[in-house]
């Protein structure tokens, strides 16, 4: 893989790329100036035309840019749009420039494509929200700003532009989770997401510093991805002495930087132990959960790891860490998802689990598989979230699936598209999730360089079964069986507006067929298609070729096993929640310690609360607030100086102001005499 990068690439300039992020930025700035400076709102139709128009236009520009990219000869597909020198210092310069290569092309199509659909969906979803006059425009302002930041992130030509977008999406995530900020809980969730992400960002920054310091020492002070990749072999062999509390010894520089980068990725992409913010992020409006916390922002970590794949190829230790963290996160989150009863929480844990899959693939070197799953996941998870949003709208903001059931009869269209999403994520062929998940499992199965790769594969397989179980459970509990809410609720259940339904249909279509973009060769052979895995082929320029050393018959056996596991999961859900509803009821009532452990999410929030939050709050309260702020600043400095002046002036000095003009005259004469005397002597 390193060799592939070392080969000199011909860079084609293009001035088209800048418009992809700038269009949403323009809309966001217009909204921001109106709301923040002019204190005026636009009519809703104007907001829709500007915001949705900007993102759709950005999507069209992306498609044109994609067309330009694939018209270039294979292996030379790099478009660069250099705007200006952002930071220049001596031999170092960071350009504000955008890069379109196969990897970022896939990303911008997903971001602007799914983003456009979710913008359209938001028109209908936010229409009945009247909590605040400016809410509608403010929402679209943030959404546009998010789209801009995300596009900066994936189009950035160097680490600094990527980091700019990285921070931007974090900010927008915070703003949108706490969108309904008058509810204190939402504001708390927003802060939690922001603070946890901050920890990850710190790791990311350390990674940039580590890499840059080593490169600069080797005479290549650069942050541009292509230049880093070219210069990287010069520092690949360097080692760094580790401090004693980390076990001492020498680490490869690539491993150290790789671990730092992964800490950043784990924060943004919700991996153990930094995943805790994502379930709480569901406090935001549902389109936000779909766009930011399922389809795009949370995949930024996966994208970044793939972007740095040349680094991880030289750092097997860091790769193993990624693979294992991903696999354990996938299993861990899937077990929690089984017991949750909030429709959005189930999907949130499912997202964490699927992100774990992507990291499992990236750690095993199957970067193409990670991006493939990223794309298909963006479709079906956005579909599931938007479907859940339609259910929540229909149920008048009820999210508890214990109070749903039988909704298929009332909202059949939503039920059908939701079912398509469920089948896609569960990994039933020929829908998209099956192909992408299979590529990941195959990648883990054959990753000889990762310790315990068969174990990773087994975890992935079990997780696939669990995924199928909890997703079908969600579907059956929501749409099948008997309605468990009040008669009044049932009476009001209705299909949502057209602007909500159309994006659902489009996403359902792509969830169903997107898998054929990465059809494994073993199935391609059945239909006589050459190079059927066109996505992997397309990405290979950036991510390298990932050859899978297994025979076709073995590949088919593994796929069959995966289908069997998924089918068992689905069948179990069908039996438990439709045929024998008494059984889960019984388990719940007896609430064994294991069930309680899962339902309470392994008490991780509580443990973090005791270990990190409580001590921090205690220190803030007692040391920083009572000690430093109230005691030192307010007490000693502000009140202290005032009290000191009072003690000197009010008790003593003021008596000099006797009111007798002659005493003042006396001081004047005495003073003059003293000065003259001093001058003369």
């Amino acid at each position, binding site marked *: 893989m390193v060799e592939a990068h070392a080969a000199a690439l011909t860079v084609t300039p293009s001035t088209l790329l800048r418009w992809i992020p700038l269009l949403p930025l323009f809309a966001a700035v217009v909204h921001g100036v109106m709301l923040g400076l002019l204190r005026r709102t636009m009519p809703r139709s104007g907001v829709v035309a500007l915001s949705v128009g900007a993102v759709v236009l950005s999507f069209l520009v992306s498609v044109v840019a994609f067309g330009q990219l694939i018209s270039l000869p294979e292996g030379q597909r790099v478009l660069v749009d250099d705007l200006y020198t952002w930071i220049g210092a001596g031999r170092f310069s960071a350009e504000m420039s955008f890069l379109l290569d196969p990897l970022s092309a896939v990303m911008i199509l997903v971001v602007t494509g799914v983003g456009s659909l979710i913008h359209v969906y938001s028109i209908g979803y936010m229409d009945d929200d009247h909590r605040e006059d400016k809410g509608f425009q403010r929402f679209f302002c943030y959404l546009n700003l998010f789209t801009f930041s995300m596009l900066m992130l994936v189009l950035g030509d160097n680490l600094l532009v990527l980091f700019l977008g990285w921070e931007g999406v974090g900010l927008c995530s915070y703003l949108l989770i706490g969108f309904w900020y008058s509810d204190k809980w939402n504001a708390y969730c927003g802060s939690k997401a922001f603070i946890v992400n901050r920890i990850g960002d710190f790791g990311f920054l350390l990674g940039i510093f580590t890499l840059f310091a080593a490169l600069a020492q080797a005479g290549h002070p650069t942050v541009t991805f292509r230049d880093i990749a070219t210069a990287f072999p010069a520092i690949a062999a360097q080692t760094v002495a580790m401090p004693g509390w980390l076990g001492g010894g020498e680490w490869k520089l690539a491993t150290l930087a790789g671990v730092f980068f992964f800490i950043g990725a784990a924060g943004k992409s919700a991996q153990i132990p930094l995943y805790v913010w994502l379930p709480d992020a569901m406090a935001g409006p549902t389109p936000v959960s779909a766009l930011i916390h399922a389809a795009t922002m949370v995949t930024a970590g996966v994208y970044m790891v793939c972007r740095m794949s040349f680094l991880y190829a030289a750092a097997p230790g860091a790769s193993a860490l990624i693979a294992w963290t991903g696999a354990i996160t996938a299993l861990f989150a899937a077990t929690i998802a089984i017991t949750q009863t909030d429709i959005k929480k189930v999907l949130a844990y499912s997202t964490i689990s699927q992100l774990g899959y992507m990291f499992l693939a990236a750690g095993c070197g199957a970067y193409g598989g990670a991006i493939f799953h990223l794309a298909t996941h963006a479709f079906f998870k956005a579909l599931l979230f938007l479907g859940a949003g339609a259910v929540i709208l229909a149920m008048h903001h009820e999210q508890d699936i214990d109070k749903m059931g039988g909704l298929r009869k009332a909202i059949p269209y939503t039920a059908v598209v939701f079912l398509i999403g469920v089948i896609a994520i569960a990994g039933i062929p020929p829908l998209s999730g099956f192909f992408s998940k299979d590529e990941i499992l195959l990648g883990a199965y054959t990753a000889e360089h990762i310790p315990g790769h068969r174990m990773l594969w087994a975890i992935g397989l079990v997780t696939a079964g669990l995924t199928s179980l909890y997703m079908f459970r969600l579907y059956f509990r929501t749409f099948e069986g008997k309605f468990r809410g009040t008669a009044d609720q049932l009476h009001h259940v209705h299909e949502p507006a057209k602007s909500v339904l159309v994006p659902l249909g489009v996403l359902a279509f792509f969830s169903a067929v997107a898998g054929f973009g990465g059809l494994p060769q073993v199935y391609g052979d059945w239909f006589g298609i050459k190079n059927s895995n066109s996505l992997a082929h397309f990405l290979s320029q950036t991510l390298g070729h990932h050859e899978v050393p297994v025979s076709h018959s073995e590949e088919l056996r593994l796929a069959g096993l995966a289908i069997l596991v998924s089918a068992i999961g689905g069948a179990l859900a069908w039996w438990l929640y439709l045929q024998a509803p008494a059984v889960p009821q019984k388990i719940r009532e007896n609430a064994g310690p294991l069930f309680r452990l899962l339902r309470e999410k392994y008490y991780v929030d509580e443990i973090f609360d005791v270990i990190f939050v409580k001590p921090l709050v205690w220190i803030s309260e007692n040391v920083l607030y009572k000690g430093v702020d109230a005691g030192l600043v307010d007490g000693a400095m502000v009140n202290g100086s005032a009290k000191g002046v009072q003690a000197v002036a009010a008790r003593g000095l*003021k008596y000099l*102001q*006797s*009111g*007798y*003009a002659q005493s003042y*005259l*006396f001081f004047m004469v005495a003073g003059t005499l003293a000065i003259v005397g001093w001058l003369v002597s």
Partner: protein
Amino acid sequence: MIPLSHVIWLSAALFTIGVIGALTRRNLIVILMSVELMLNAVNLSLVGFARAWGDLGGHVFVLMVIAVAAAEVAVGLGIVISLFRNRDSVNIEDVSLLKW
């Protein structure tokens, strides 16, 4: 020809008498008179120096000081009269309200 030192000594003596008067007397009118005495002490030394060095600048300055002193006395006596109308007193110790 009177030497300059005589003029300076006389001027200094007059000024000191004026200062002591302003510091010790309680009657506002006497205090004003003491201030006039100090001003004229200065005038005297100005004229003395002007004559010693043959510079008319000193004379000009003296005319200036006399004009300002006239205005000052007019305002000062006005204040004393209005004070007397309000307080029935021209004792400076009776006007000590503006204090801590």
